[in-house]
């Protein structure tokens, strides 16, 4: 039996660091920007929003945006091109929270969405409309973005003066119950509704095809097709097709769970 404790502790530490980096009451990123660099990072943690700068290019408001916000977004995208969805896989506490939560419910009560719908298509359909709609309608469909939604939840938990409204409640139930507790892998919200995650995976998909970012690779000669990687992948990115194990770059967040669980050490990253 493999000792999973060091790996789990390492993963947890990464996600807790991500939490401390972005969310109140810690907000290390904002403190660093303000305290050390004397810069205002804009409305936080929206500083990394992929949609607002894109929409503002077309509405001529781009140059009025907070420059830290624009640069944070550009650097964030470039990092995703080079490293893949590093934020989802290593730092995003929102996804890790529901992934951990899902362990409470036995597997037989959880839904394997891939059996019923092509998840990646819903995910990227959502991203497309999320990015494009504001160009015509000028409203901000932020309700699902983890940088808005999870920040709101955390603010409520830490006692911020925020109304616990019906929309927040609906999003919360979807996030924690349907797409968390009762979804295999516990990352249903990440897969269906998180535009930040979809955006990172979009860059990863392109960069992996261009050979820039390293992707998950399976050594066919070592693989015994036991299916442990498929079963353990929180994003359900691993599958067995035509007798070989494959990883989908459209869903993979490079969290390392598959390679950790592989009994033969057949899974590694490479270009």
């Amino acid at each position, binding site marked *: 039996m493999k000792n999973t404790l060091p790996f789990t502790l390492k993963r947890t530490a990464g996600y807790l660091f991500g939490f401390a980096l972005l969310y109140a009451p810690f907000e290390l990123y904002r403190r660093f920007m303000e305290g050390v660099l004397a810069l205002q990072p804009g*409305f936080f943690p929206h500083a990394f929003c992929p949609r607002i700068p894109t929409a503002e290019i077309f509405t001529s408001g781009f140059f009025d945006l907070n420059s830290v916000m624009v640069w944070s977004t550009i650097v964030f995208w470039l990092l995703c091109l080079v490293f893949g969805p590093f934020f989802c896989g290593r730092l995003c506490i929102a996804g890790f929270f529901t992934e951990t939560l899902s362990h409470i419910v036995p597997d037989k009560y959880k*839904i*394997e*969405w*891939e*059996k*019923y*719908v*092509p998840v990646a*298509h*819903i*995910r*990227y*359909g*959502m*991203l*497309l*409309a*999320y990015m494009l*709609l504001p160009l015509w*309608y*000028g*409203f*901000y*469909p*932020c*309700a*699902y973005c983890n940088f*808005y939604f999870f920040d*709101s939840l955390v603010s409520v938990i830490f006692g911020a003066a*925020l*109304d616990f*409204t*019906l*929309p*927040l409640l*609906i*999003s919360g139930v*979807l996030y924690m119950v*349907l797409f968390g507790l009762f979804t295999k892998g516990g990352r249903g919200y990440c897969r*269906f*509704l998180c535009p930040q995650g979809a955006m990172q995976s979009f860059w990863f998909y392109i960069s992996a095809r261009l050979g820039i970012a390293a992707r998950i690779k399976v050594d066919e000669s070592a693989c015994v*097709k*036991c*299916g442990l990687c*498929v*079963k353990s992948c929180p994003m359900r990115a691993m*599958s*067995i*097709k035509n*007798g070989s194990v494959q990883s989908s770059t459209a869903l993979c967040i490079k969290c390392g769970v598959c390679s950790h669980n592989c009994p033969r050490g057949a899974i590694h990253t490479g270009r």
Partner: protein
Amino acid sequence: MSSMKTKFLQSKDKALNFAVGAGIPAGTVLSGTAGGCTGVCGSCGGTCLGGLALAVYLGGRVIFKRHNKTVLQAEPSANK
């Protein structure tokens, strides 16, 4: 011929689900509730209602596919 039909149905299903995904944020426009986010949850007038529609759609797919026994089966080793 049947493989062509299967491919067509799969592509149709993928296109339909892509449209469903796009409908999550787009649905709020149709509902006429799009007011713009001001940073306070609720001010957008219910942009999360599209997610509720998604949950209903997904629930419907699960019930329909289970009822018609057309659930995709993963390869045996992945089902252990």
